C-alpha cells in the first residue's frame, strides 16, 4: 500500500473509532447519566460524572447525519445541509480575511524583531501576553470601535470586526514561527552572505526568507485553525448573522425539540477547520524545495 493510501486509511480508521466510541457509550451508558449529590426536585443540581445517553443528549450518529438531509425547519424549507454549507462558506470567507490580516501583521512583527534585538526583547513578551486576553473581553470593543468608524464615514461592515478579532488569534503563531524561521540560518550561512558583501535586504531575500519556510508552514496552518475559531467565537460575541457560529447557538437553543439539528453546524465547523488547514497545506506543496533542510540539515 502506498504511503498516501495508508494515510487515508488511518484517517478513516480514526473517524470510525470516534463513531464507534460514541455509539458504544450510548449503548452501555445509563440513560440519565451518573450524577452525584443531586437534590430531589431540583433540575441541574449535583455533579455529572458520566453524561446522559438519551436521544436528546446523544443522538445516534446516523440520526445526526440524516438530519443534515432533512428540511431545515419543516415545510418546503431546503435540507439542513444547505444553510449549514452557506453559513460555513460565509464564516470561511471572514476567517480567510482574518487569516490574511494576521499573517501580514505577524510577519511584520517577526521582521522587526529579527532586525533589532532590542525590538525582540521589547515586543515578544507583549505578543505572548496578548494571547491571554480573552477574546470575548475585547470583541465588543472592536465591534463598537468599528461601528463608530462606520458612523463617522469610514465604511466598516460588521464582518470586518469579526475578521479583525479572528486575526488577533491568527497573528500569534505567525509572529513566533516567522521569527524563529528568520533567525534559523546557521552562523556559517550568515557569514557567507557577509563575505559576499550582501546587505540586509539581499540576505533577507536569498537566505532568511527561504530558511524560514519550514518554520512558517506549520505557523500558517495554526493561524488558519486559529482564524476559524476566532471567527466563530467573534460572530457569536458580537452577534453577526449568517455565519456558522451564530447558527450553532441558534440550533443549540432548539436542542430539546430537535436535538440532532445542532450537530449540523458542528459538523460544518469541523469541515470548515479542515478546509482552512488543508488550503494552507496546499501552499506547502509549491514550496517543497525549501523544506529540504528539514531532512538534510
Amino acid at each position, binding site marked *: 500500500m502506498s504511503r498516501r493510501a495508508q494515510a487515508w486509511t488511518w484517517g478513516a480508521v480514526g473517524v470510525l473509532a470516534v463513531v464507534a466510541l460514541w455509539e458504544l457509550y450510548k449503548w452501555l451508558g445509563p440513560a440519565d447519566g451518573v450524577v452525584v449529590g443531586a437534590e430531589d426536585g431540583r433540575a441541574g443540581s449535583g455533579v455529572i460524572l458520566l453524561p446522559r445517553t438519551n436521544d436528546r443528549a446523544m443522538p445516534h450518529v446516523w440520526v445526526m447525519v440524516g438530519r443534515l438531509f432533512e428540511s431545515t425547519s419543516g415545510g418546503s424549507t431546503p435540507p439542513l445541509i444547505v444553510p449549514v454549507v452557506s453559513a460555513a462558506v460565509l464564516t470561511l470567507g471572514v476567517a480567510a480575511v482574518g487569516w490574511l490580516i494576521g499573517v501580514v501583521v505577524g510577519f511584520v512583527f517577526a521582521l522587526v524583531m529579527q532586525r533589532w534585538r532590542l525590538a525582540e526583547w521589547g515586543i515578544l513578551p507583549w505578543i505572548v501576553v496578548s494571547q491571554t486576553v480573552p477574546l470575548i473581553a475585547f470583541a465588543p470593543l472592536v465591534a463598537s470601535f468599528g461601528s463608530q468608524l462606520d458612523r463617522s464615514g469610514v465604511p466598516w461592515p460588521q464582518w470586518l470586526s469579526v475578521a479583525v478579532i479572528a486575526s488577533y488569534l491568527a497573528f500569534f503563531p505567525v509572529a513566533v514561527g516567522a521569527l524563529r524561521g528568520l533567525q534559523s540560518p*546557521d552562523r*556559517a*550561512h550568515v*557569514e*557567507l*552572505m*557577509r*563575505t*559576499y*558583501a*550582501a546587505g540586509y535586504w*539581499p540576505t533577507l531575500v*536569498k*537566505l532568511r526568507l*527561504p530558511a524560514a*519556510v519550514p518554520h512558517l508552514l506549520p505557523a500558517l496552518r495554526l493561524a488558519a485553525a486559529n482564524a476559524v475559531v476566532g471567527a466563530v467565537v467573534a460572530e457569536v460575541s458580537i452577534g453577526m448573522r449568517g455565519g456558522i457560529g451564530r447558527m450553532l447557538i441558534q440550533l443549540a437553543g432548539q436542542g430539546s425539540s430537535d436535538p440532532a439539528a445542532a450537530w449540523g453546524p458542528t459538523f460544518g465547523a469541523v469541515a470548515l477547520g479542515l478546509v482552512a488547514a488543508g488550503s494552507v497545506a496546499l501552499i506547502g506543496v509549491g514550496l517543497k*524545495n*525549501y*523544506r*529540504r*533542510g528539514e*531532512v*538534510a*540539515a
Partner: protein
Amino acid sequence: MTDETIAVRAAGVGKVFPTKAGEVVALTGVDLEVAAGEFVSLIGPSGCGKSTLLRLIADLDEATSGTLSVFGKTAHQARLDQDYGIAFQQAGLLPWRTVGANIALPLELHGVGKADREARIAELVDLVGLTDFVDRHPDQLSGGMQQRVAIARALAERPRLLLMDEPFGALDEMTREYLQSELARIAAETGAAVVFVTHSIPEAVFLSDRVVVMSPRPGRITDILPVDFGDARVEGLRESPEYFERVTAVREALHGAPVERPNER
C-alpha cells in the same frame, strides 16, 4: 613590489578577544606576505589562531593591532570589492538550491545576468567534475561532492585570492586525497593565490608552496617552510622521498624539536 603582486600582507597583526575572564590573545605579531598565485598553508594545533588569521583576512573579524592589506587595500575594502572567494569546513550550501543555483549565488547577489550565470555554472561544474549533478540538491550529494560545490562557488567570481578553512577536514581520507589533487590542479589553472588552513601535515606539504607553522598561547607564527614542488603535484609525489623529507621538516617545526623515530632502520 606593487599591490598586484602581493595578495596578502600582514605586519604585526594581533587579535585580542575580550571575554568575561579577561582578554584572550588569539594572535600576536603576525608578519606574513602571500604573493599573487602563491599557495600558502597555515598549520598548527587548535587554538594557534590559524582560523582567526583567515577570518581577519576575510574581514569576518577585525584585527586589534598591526596592519593587514589584501591586494594593497584594507581587508574591509577587499571584501566589499569581492577580491576573495572563501570555503569553510562545512560546505555551507543552501539546501533549497540546486548545485547550479548554489554556485550562482554570489553571481546573483552581484547582479550578473542570467546568460552569463548559466555559462559560468557550466564552466565551474565542469572544473569540479559535477556536470551530471548540476540540477541535484545538496542532500542528494556525498560530503565530498558538497565540498566540491563549495569550492566551485568560491571560484565563481574568478577571485585572485582563495581563502579555505579546513575545507577537507570533515571528509574521509580517500576523498580527501582526491580533492587535494583536484584543488592543486584548480589552483594552478586559475592562478589564484590560496590561503589554506589545515591541521594535516601531509595535506599542507602536498598542496603548498610555503607552509606557515603556528603555535598557540598566544597564537603566533613560529616558522615558515618552503615546499616548492612546483608543477610536480601528482599522485606519485605522495610516495617520494622529497615529500617525506618535507613532511618531517614540518612535523619537527610543529613540535619545536627533532622528532624521535624509534622505528627508523
